[in-house]
């Protein structure tokens, strides 16, 4: 894959970061020639330690800030971006997850100093490493360098609730959790909200009208099908 994930930050940071990713990637995957697939251990680098406290109990609601630093390694971010884009690819309705900064949000989440997020951190970071190991074992390449079909052959073993092998249950929990995070991150963006065709939460004048005539017709058709009484607003 040539289109590496770029965090949704300013250009200067991005350029600096790109340079270091290239180096890191070379070090991790390029330096040891002629390893056999089974002997090669996945290495995504180490996430930085959690730093900084929470936002406290009196944080401003008008100007919210995230006081903690992001902690995921560059290699972890690369895989996160790749998986998130497989979960939420670009289509005719909306862009891909990484186009709207979903991987940065995953990093924000797993770097937060709260119990739920710390629990998720372990699940996510271990899951990413497992994906990388599968890629190395099966295709002798990093997960980020797999083509879609190769990546899918790995994800298919953990992404569908009714098709999971018992031994892969921890990985399934990881994927479900990452998907849950990616969905929340994605559909709260402007693009995601537009994709859902959400209308509302805009001031209206006068009384709230309730179900629209079209929506009421629809509900009444549904109710007829269920043998339930018709409704009026």
């Amino acid at each position: 894959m040539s289109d590496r994930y770029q965090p949704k930050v300013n250009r200067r940071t991005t350029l600096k970061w790109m340079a270091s990713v290239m180096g890191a990637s070379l070090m991790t995957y390029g330096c040891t020639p002629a390893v056999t697939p089974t002997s090669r251990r996945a290495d995504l680098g180490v996430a930085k330690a959690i730093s900084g406290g929470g936002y406290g109990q009196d944080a401003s609601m008008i100007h919210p800030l995230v006081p903690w630093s992001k902690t995921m390694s560059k290699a972890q971010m690369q895989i996160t971006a790749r998986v998130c884009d497989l979960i939420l690819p670009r289509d005719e309705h909306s862009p891909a997850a990484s186009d709207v900064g979903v991987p940065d949000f995953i990093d924000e989440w797993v770097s937060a100093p709260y119990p739920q997020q710390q629990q998720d951190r372990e699940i996510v970071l271990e899951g990413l490493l497992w994906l990388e190991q599968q890629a190395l074992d099966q295709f002798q390449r990093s997960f980020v360098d797999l083509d879609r079909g190769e990546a899918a052959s790995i994800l298919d073993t953990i992404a569908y609730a009714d098709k999971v092998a018992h031994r892969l249950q921890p990985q399934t929990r990881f994927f479900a959790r990452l998907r849950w995070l990616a969905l929340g991150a994605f559909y709260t963006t402007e693009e995601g909200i537009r994709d859902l065709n959400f209308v509302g939460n805009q001031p209206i004048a006068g009384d709230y009208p309730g179900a629209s005539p079209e929506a009421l017709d629809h509900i009444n058709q549904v109710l007829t099908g269920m043998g339930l009484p018709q409704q009026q607003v």
Partner: protein
Amino acid sequence: MKSNYDVIVVGSGAGGAMSAYMLTHAGYRVLMLEAGRDYDPASETPMFQMERDAPLRGAATPDRPKGYYMATHNGGWEIEGQPYTHADGEQFNWFRTRMLGGRTNHWARWSPRYGPYDFKPKSRDGLGVDWPFAYEDIADWYDKTERLIGVYGRNDGLENHPDSAPDAIQPAPAPRAYELFMKAACDELGIPCVPVNRAVLTRPLDDRAACFYATHCMRGCSIGAAFQTTTSLLPMAKKTGKLNIKTGAMVREVLTDSSGRPNGVEFIDQATNTHHQVHARVVVLAASACETARLMLNSTSENHPDGLANTSGQVGRNLLDNPQSKPVVAYFPALDGRPNYDEFGAASAHLHIPWWLYQEQARGELDFQRGYQLIFFGGRQPPGMGLGGVADLADGYGRDLKQQVRSQFGSTMTFIAQGEMIPSDDCYCEIDPNVKDRWGIPVLKYHWKWSDQEQRQARHMRQTILTLVERLQGQIVTLPEEDDFLSPGGTCIHEVGTARMGDDPTLSVTNQYGQCWDADNLFLMDGSVFASEAHKNPTLTILMLAMRNSEYLAQQLSKGEL
């Protein structure tokens, strides 16, 4: 501090603000002491901030346990330096909001009236105690309260769910499609599904605008449509020139003279960490049920070795909360693809299911006493983490997943049941002799056990929800186990009852006016005085009692009785 005050009011939430409003309008000088910080809804309410602008997309954290934007500053289940403790193996969750206006800034504004059965529960089923008055005695006060604070709703004439005077109630917002969908199942099953009464304006009132059907009420309401004391009773009371509010004032104890009669309070000014004493003819406690009990129990002296106004031994006892189910989430495929429209409405549910099996219960056909209400919400609400359960429902990945989310968004509903418990010797709070808060004030220790009564009621709650979901061909997304269906006590944030009113001074702390039997110039104006707690949200009744009892207090003052 020199006493320029007739009355000291402790607390600025529903009860304290109503009391201050009534007393200042009756011409009395009031000092209000609020433990929390000052709060300005006009500049601090995140009306249109997006979830994506908040840390973690606004998800709940220990710092903001109801989500980033819920109007809670310096509050939550746990507050640094202000602990509380539990008996071994027991749990009670205590939500405090340390800011001007207290929990009225973020409450759901649900405002049902208690009905005739609710004030006479013992007469009806032999359990608990009756209140010292009947519904008919206070019905007018509900009307007066509703007119003052602004409540929308509908008169449906249901058993034990009293109607309001026609001019006391504003029109309720019309139901959304998914609510009518639920109502159809209720219609068939003989379950009432009716408009919720809420303290939200659909018509302007005083300086407050009517709801414009955007931004969630729990964030607070800078236009004043959703009732909170910081945009209504407090500014109105201040306009009289008779109210002085001191924030950051943590009251430590009620002071008494050599005869044991209350004559003021001692508080800690948090800004300077200094102790102050202030005196007045009357002290009103409205610090919230448990904080009020704590204050009384900590106000010990030679005359009051067991705490102030506690010769009955009932202070801290009879702690009640609405037994609340854990959330049940279901997906209704039949709702997929309904024509799009604005489903935001007044943010909260427009319809709900109030308790309806009164006659069945009277005939002994159910294995528990007292009722519950069913709350359901969902539809197309502004997306946040979890997408209303759609993210839990998700399967697979890729373009199919996106299509799945598009189609299921708004087709889920979350159910919460909220019941009535019987006062129990197992549920109370007391002073923990071993633990103090940051100011050296002894803290509360909680004791809590759900009884078989509540467990049996919970099974009925769960079955009703499952029946509705099944009839509407829904799919369960989240379903708590039958024996783990109730949240811990306190989770509903409806705690009341710690200094109940009654007719018998040996079994109650106050008379029917919230006036302490042991001290006629000490009044309780919060939920502490509840003798029972119906399945109905308590704040309207707290406001009603504070209004009625403050008028009584003002009359006593004018007669020179106090």
